[in-house]
């Protein structure tokens, strides 16, 4: 017998607030979900390719590594994290040993289905100095219209000279509510790449906080966001430059179909002392329907003189000259638009080297574009 649980959450808060009427300062959500068993049943975990991924038997702080625990304080959003801690029913931790460079990606896949519509999970990744790995985390729903709930809290520490690529896939259909908070700390010369792929019709709230403490550390976020039907995506990327000579890039490309909506909050935050640091943000969303809502709040906060920060945000139709070029070669207008949409998303797809994953992303993407006649 499952009970319905409720919670009030305050998430996606902007580091610096803007006018209240814009309703972009943050999100106050009342959520309800079916209580799920504590340990994950096998059905929750569709695939576990790598023995390195250890289940977290208990999710108390003792079960986690010291460094990771210290990075808790860097969390941009206490509320979601404490909610996950209290209610988690699944969790994994992985440590990549010093100097261990693995080329085969670790894969962690979750499937939300009728038997397990609720997933509240935590993931802890500890990259020891000099290590390198790729982790692909997938979140999928088994059927359209299934009322499902996901809340996740991921902590990553990338040690000195280490390198982590995290690919997060979300293929969620209508009826799914998806809340996610990722917190990353980077040591000296550490690098972190996040590839965030969202293709679906669900309501997603994705928060990412990257703390570049180490000198010469780097991070890049590549996000592809294609939302359909009445779905919505709410991103809150906060990149803090603290160390000297740190570099960050945020690249967001998306398309909105039907009555979908999107809110992109991206912050480049230069702290005093982060000399010679560079941060950039580039967001472009194509609107493919008159009923869409597209919002952006790209922030640059700066307390250090010797830095370079820039951002570019654009929205709207596809380039009419490019469209004319394609149609002049006999390509139908809708097909030409589709080619241009794909071209826009291409820079993000290019970040995914795993052929299987790429094929799945393309299948999800093409299916949706096809369904709208593109």
């Amino acid at each position: 017998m499952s009970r319905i649980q409720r919670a009030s959450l305050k998430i996606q808060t902007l580091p610096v607030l803007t006018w209240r009427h814009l309703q972009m300062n943050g999100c106050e959500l009342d959520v309800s979900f079916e209580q799920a068993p504590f340990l994950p049943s096998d059905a929750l975990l569709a695939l576990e390719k790598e023995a390195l991924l250890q289940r977290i038997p208990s999710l108390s702080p003792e079960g986690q590594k010291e460094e990771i625990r210290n990075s808790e304080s860097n969390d941009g959003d206490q509320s979601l994290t404490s909610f996950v801690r209290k209610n988690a029913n699944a969790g994994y931790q992985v440590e990549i040993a010093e100097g261990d460079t693995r080329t085969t990606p670790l894969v962690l896949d979750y499937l939300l289905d009728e038997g397990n519509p609720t997933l509240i999970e935590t993931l802890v990744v500890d990259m020891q100095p000099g290590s390198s790995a790729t982790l692909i985390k997938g979140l999928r729903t088994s059927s359209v219209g299934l009322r499902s709930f996901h809340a996740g809290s991921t902590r990553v520490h990338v040690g000195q000279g280490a390198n982590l690529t995290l690919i997060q896939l979300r293929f969620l259909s209508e009826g799914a509510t998806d809340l996610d908070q990722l917190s990353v700390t980077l040591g000296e010369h550490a690098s972190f790449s996040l590839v965030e792929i969202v293709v679906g019709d669900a309501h997603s709230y994705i928060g990412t906080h990257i703390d570049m403490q180490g000198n010469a550390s780097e991070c890049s976020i590549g996000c592809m966001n294609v939302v359909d039907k009445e779905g919505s995506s709410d991103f809150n990327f906060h990149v803090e430059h603290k160390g000297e000579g740190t570099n960050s890039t945020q690249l967001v490309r998306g398309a909105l179909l039907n009555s979908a909506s999107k809110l992109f909050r991206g912050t480049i935050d230069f702290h005093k002392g982060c000399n010679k640091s560079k941060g950039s943000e580039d967001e472009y969303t194509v609107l493919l329907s008159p009923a869409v809502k597209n919002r952006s709040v790209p922030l640059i906060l700066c307390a250090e003189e010797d830095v370079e920060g820039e951002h570019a945000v654009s929205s709207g139709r596809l380039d009419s000259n490019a469209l004319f070029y394609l149609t002049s070669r006999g390509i139908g207008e809708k097909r030409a638009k589709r080619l241009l949409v794909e071209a826009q998303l291409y820079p993000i797809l290019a970040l995914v080297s795993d052929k299987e994953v790429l094929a799945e992303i393309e299948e999800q993407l093409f299916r949706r574009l096809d369904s709208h006649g593109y």
Partner: protein
Amino acid sequence: MKAEKTRFDEMDLSRYDFINEDEPAFRVEKGLNETVVRTISKEKDEPSWMLEHRLRSLKTFYKVPLPVWGPNLDELNLDEIITYSRPDSGMNESWESVPEGIRDAFDRLGIPEAEKEFLGGVGAQFDSEVVYHKVRKEVAGQGVIYCDMRTALREHEALVKKHFMRLVPPSDHTFAALHGALWSGGSFVHVPKGVKVSIPLQSYFRLNAEGAGQFEHTLIILEPGADLHFIEGCSAPRYSVINLHAGCVELFVGEGARLRYSTVENWSKNMMNLNTKRARVEKNGSIEWVSGSFGSHISMLYPSSLLVGEGAHSEFTGISFAGKGQILDTGTKVIHSSAHTTSSVNTKSIAKNGGHCITRSEVIITKAALHSKATISCESLMLDSESRSDTIPAMDIRSEDADIGHEARIGRISDKAIFYLMSRGLSEGEAKELIVRGFAEPIAKALPMEYAVEMNTLIKMEMEGSIG
């Protein structure tokens, strides 16, 4: 059943309502009460509807909370402000009480003796009467009405009543409500159909003791096809013992009309500048904001354009320079609510010596604003690591075929540029000053020459950190 408290609702143009039932923001000891307001109105000999407007605004003032965003306004001493706003208060101090830095600035800027006292908050009246009357007469010949608000209320009551605080209602925010209750002085301009006003009008000409500009209200109405350039403020630092400026500017741009509204603001460093400026642009009309912000301790300034008619256009060019102890939170808002509207925003900011510049903007494209285009460009210059510069732009787009482009950049003066200028004989300080002036050039270009010259002098003084 889950319910989200915040949903992506349809933007309602008139939705600026902040009123809630919580505790009021201020408890006023010395009493901003009905009596004070009635006295003000009586002294000005106003029609009853204006008195009622003041009283309603007063009620609203107690209900509207302070904003949750932006600089901290704890330093605001409302009691003192209220006291000094009373018509019977003796505001005039002595020349000695004017900070030395300000007195020096007057000299540097070559301000004539007669003006100095007024600008220093010491003189009761600035004798620009001669100039003012001359200008009045010249434009009257074109059918233009140009006078102060008090006269306008007396001689053009219907026009004023039709427009007064319709664009910026008292419910808008705390200081709009305060303004509604205490407003005093200001300019009124009405340009008839098709008239191109031959000379720029300046608010500076007809300043007088009324409220010393603290709660000035500027109301400009352009009939279809009219054309006007209006200049507000002046480059010289303005000192006042009342540390709040809560003025209001309402601009009505009729069909096919064109208005350029330039401001060079340099309130002294004890001031809080919370001015509200808004323009409503009809079909094919255009508004051009040119704004230079140099003064104030704290500024919150966001000239806004409501593009309500098809083909309406808005342009904003602004620069703000925050030095020691200053927090300049400035920007602009543009709301496209009609088809084929266009807007462009170009802001520049400079932060130095611990100054804090915040560039805040908002561009809204409603569903009805088909085929609209908006471009926004923000550039911020940091001159040291004591200062802060934040860019907070927001875009809300509800129309599929709107074309929006936004870009922002933040950084420092390039070492290469400094080296290049120094290799040509300039000192480092001179090189930096020249580069900063170049940075401010687009604004200087849009101002009348005397202002441009004064602005360059201002920059020079700011770079030296010499203004009080």
